[in-house]
């Protein structure tokens, strides 16, 4: 087991699974990309997506291994199976990319995202917002007499659902981190 909790060698079995079926159906995949933590590496990855016309639904990046100079980029992308295979192969070509993992095919994943939402309102709406926040296990991290800032963590669709409910209740501003994901089990 590597300290990064990614199966060693998984790359050759999954990310470069070359026998893709050519289908027109768009799929949503979560990729974990382990990169050398050096200047410009994020620009390379983003430049690849914009230059070749691939989609990015969400992208997060942070150093995960200080001594080994490794950062982990989590990318949620959509495309046909052929495009997804190309994205993985193209990522794998970048010299400073060490490993590419398609978490969507490698196993069951846990995906989490953190969001903060500012909800302005008074009276019943304010009470209702707080009640729903409790159901979603969102925390109040700031409060005035006419506003709350909620902090919520969860899978992206849970956050979407929470945001939809907050909208009529005075959702004024939102910041989301994008998805972080790990494979379940060992």
């Amino acid at each position, binding site marked *: 087991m590597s300290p990064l909790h990614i199966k060693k060698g998984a790359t050759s079995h999954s990310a470069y699974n*070359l026998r*893709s079926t050519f289908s027109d159906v768009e799929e949503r995949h979560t990729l974990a990309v382990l990169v*050398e933590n050096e200047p*410009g590496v994020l620009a390379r990855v983003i430049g690849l997506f914009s*230059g070749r016309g691939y989609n990015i639904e969400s992208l997060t990046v942070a150093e995960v291994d200080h001594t080994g100079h490794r950062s982990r980029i989590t990318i949620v992308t959509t495309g046909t199976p052929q495009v997804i295979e*190309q994205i993985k192969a193209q990522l*794998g*070509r970048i*010299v*400073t990319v060490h490993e590419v993992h398609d978490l969507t095919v490698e196993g069951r994943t846990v995906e989490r995202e953190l969001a903060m939402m500012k909800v302005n309102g008074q009276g019943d709406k304010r009470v209702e917002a707080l009640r729903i926040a409790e159901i979603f296990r969102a925390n109040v991290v700031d409060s005035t007499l006419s506003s709350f800032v909620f902090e919520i963590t969860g899978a992206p669709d849970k956050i979407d659902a929470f945001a939809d409910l907050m909208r009529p209740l005075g959702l004024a501003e939102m910041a989301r981190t994008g998805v972080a994901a790990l494979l379940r089990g060992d």
Partner: protein
Amino acid sequence: MVIQALKDQGVDTVFGYPGGAVLPIYDELFQQNEIRHILVRHEQGAVHAAEGYARSTGKPGVVIVTSGPGATNAVTGLTDALLDSIPIVVFTGQVPTFLIGSDAFQEADTVGITRPCTKHNWLVKDPDRLSGTIHEAFHVATTGRPGPVLVDIPKDVQFASGAYQKPAPEKSYYKPQVKGDREAITELVAAMETAKKPVFYTGGGVINSGPAASMLLRELVDATGFPITSTLMGLGAYPASGKNWLGMLGMHGLYEANMAMHDCDLMINIGARFDDRITGRVDAFSPRSLKAHIDIDPSSINKVIHVDIPIVGDVAHVLEDILTIWKSRGRKTNAEGVARWQAKIAEWRKVDCLRYKPSTGTIKPQYALERLEALTRDRDRYITTEVGQHQMWAAQFLNFEDPNRWMTSGGLGTMGYGFPASIGVQIAHPEALVINVAGEASWLMNMQELGTAAQFRLPVKQFILNNERLGMVRQWQELLHGERYSHSWSESLPDFVKLADAFGAKGILCSDPKDLDDAIMEMLNHDGPVVFDCLVEKHENCFPMIPSGKAHNEMLLGEADTQGVIDSTGAALV
């Protein structure tokens, strides 16, 4: 330190152009004799010369240019090398680290600008990491799928003295896979044993892989008796005189090669990338074949065409394994099927798709190349080209017997590539005959390099097929823009003989087919750079041709009715 690192990498030649931000490196160059510096006349020329040097030797080409405009002038060459997988290492000067980001004099974000047109690039801010980075740059440029890399060195880092490291490629984390998967190779061998209509479709990857790959390819082709075609980039890997040779395939490829690709039942792609000049209409591309693809870059596989047997690995390694496994299983082929297939191919050959209408009054470009071929065939010969019709005719009418003898800009199609490339080739092979087959328009794009050729007494032969037209553009306008020849003339052309003379080179003008042989001999016998202005037929079209958006079996063979052959979707694919 830069020079020490170059010496440790075995570099004997650099192509470059000095400027403020590389003065410390130039100072070091001045104080040594082991590395030769070739002063070009434009940085684009330096990069193309390095490409020519690299492609003709298999060694990486090296370039040094200054910051800002020096670096931006190198961008076309870098992109060219990226698309054609040519290993080159470019060093750029940069403003001192403490000025980066301040819009300093001749500052440009070189690593930012060149990120998408290099295989990898580095900005070195720490003198202790300079030598290690240079060694890594050579390793990356030459390992796996080769390509251009760039090292941007701020001026203060050039002045500083840091710890020097020796090359240590084994320590690099960049280690592409070279051995192919045995199971997949066995699957391919099994398909080869039964195929009735097999064809090898080879490409630049065979050249990239090195001379051993070409030798193994020849062995495999001759042992199996399967026909073989190649892309523009792979010419010479299998000899044109070989009996299984079909000629080049693709948009301007030979009829028999394209028909074989369309009708085959087993396609074995070796180091080619299913470029759109090859596939034509993708959904009509070789519809009934099982496809195998050997490529060192996983991203080449299934990028354009879905393949049944993908093999990621280096051509030479994989061919060796194919041969071993095929031999160990008893060297089987479907001899009867293959013989019928060869007979079918022989019929296609009879179409004689390269025939053209000869002329006694004007020089046909095809005729000029036939004569050039006849008069230089037996020499130690290297050919470069510019981009356009002349490039395609050169590919069709010149025969290549060995790899690394043919340098052309395929992927980017860079007009202005051929002349500087011929300089790089001549530097690497001082005794050889180096000819650049050019169009007048392309040649003018980097004609300043005549100064370089003259200064270094390089006997490069510039064989210009002068049709006074941007011929390739004119051909497309004729075929799909209703003969509206919008700006496709070469107006106000110089007198090439006088031009050559002005640079101290020799100029030759030829316009009569009767004089052609003598004129070519005069060019060959002159020990120095020659500009050969060959006035050719102005409206000749290059055939065969697969119109954009059409399938391989819908080739145009001649001047027959070429009106309205390309529909509007095809027109967008040009």
